[in-house]
């Protein structure tokens, strides 16, 4: 925070402006996805499918590698990695879907509470 804060009269110091410039320079700019949760969900679904495909292909490779235990072991390792990628994808999808849902939920809650309070105040005023 600023060492030279806005005074009680609200005077904005040049130091505050300089601090603002510093803060802006440090801002992390992602380049702008209009809907980051949707993008996250899409990545999650993509990773889940990718991991699943890797796991299936590796599993079939392992079954086909009848003559070489090492090849079968490698394929099984790849299958486990595929399952891991799928799990990561599921976690990313759940996380982003929940964030998206909770964002709408809290906005709805705020608006509903505001509307209820307004109704209550109107009712109280009408009673007077």
């Amino acid at each position, binding site marked *: 925070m600023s060492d030279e804060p806005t005074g*009680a009269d609200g005077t904005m110091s040049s130091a505050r402006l300089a601090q603002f410039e510093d803060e802006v320079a440090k801002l*992390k*700019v992602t380049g702008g996805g209009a809907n980051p949760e949707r993008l996250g969900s899409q990545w999650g679904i993509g990773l889940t499918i990718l991991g699943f495909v890797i796991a299936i292909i590796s599993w079939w490779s392992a079954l086909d590698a009848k003559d070489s235990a090492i090849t079968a072991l490698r394929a099984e390792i790849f299958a486990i990695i595929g399952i891991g990628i799928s799990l990561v994808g599921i976690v990313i999808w759940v996380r982003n879907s929940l964030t998206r849902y909770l964002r709408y939920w809290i906005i709805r809650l705020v608006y509903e509470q505001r509307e209820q*309070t*307004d109704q209550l105040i109107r009712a109280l005023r009408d009673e007077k």
Partner: protein
Amino acid sequence: MTAVETNGAADGAATPPILQLAAVRAGYGRIDVLHGIDLELRAGEVFALLGPNGAGKSTTLAVASGQIVPSSGGMFLCGRDVTGAAPDALARAGVCLIPEGRGIFPNLTVSENLRMATYTGHSYHDILELAFAQFPRLGERRKQTAGTMSGGEQQMLAMARALATEPALLLIDELSMGLAPIIVDELYDHVRRIAASGLSILIVEQFAHEILGLADRAGIMLHGRLLHTGPPANIAGELTDAYLGADHTAS
């Protein structure tokens, strides 16, 4: 049609504007509301954005506060491209929006609402002290539930909460909405004092007479475009034509 003013103080040309929107197109989902907005706000300046309902004024503020990411064009703060920056990051840096409809928590008390401003790192005590110094009436009602206060007092609370965060750029959306003229005058006295302190303010209003007296420059928005910008005296003359034009277009 867009219009960016390049007049003003000589130092205004040397230093980049505190806020610049360059050819911004933005909207909700696939529907664009802004169709190429060019707007500059210099440090210490008060810019009034006027226009009828549905002109895109609030959407412009939503873009400036990072809540809506432009579909094309760019947003710059102090010359740095911050297009796509998160709204919370912009708020922490010093961009503060007072939304239309006040945006307070009606079920919380005045003090609890002010506590919400501690996200910037200011101490709760400092925030209360600053808020009550600027708005003594809030001090008298510190334990009152915010939703039970009058509309003017709620707007004061929204302003106090915004100012307590020491913003460098203040965005105000329709301060006068739903308030009696005498309350609006009182609130604009506060805005006048804030503006005199050198804070950069972008303020949106539907009705001009309250705001043109304190703005350094003004602009008229219509159908998602910034049609005219200039000194308030010039804009006042063009405003009626713009509104009537809007009505004719609408009909």
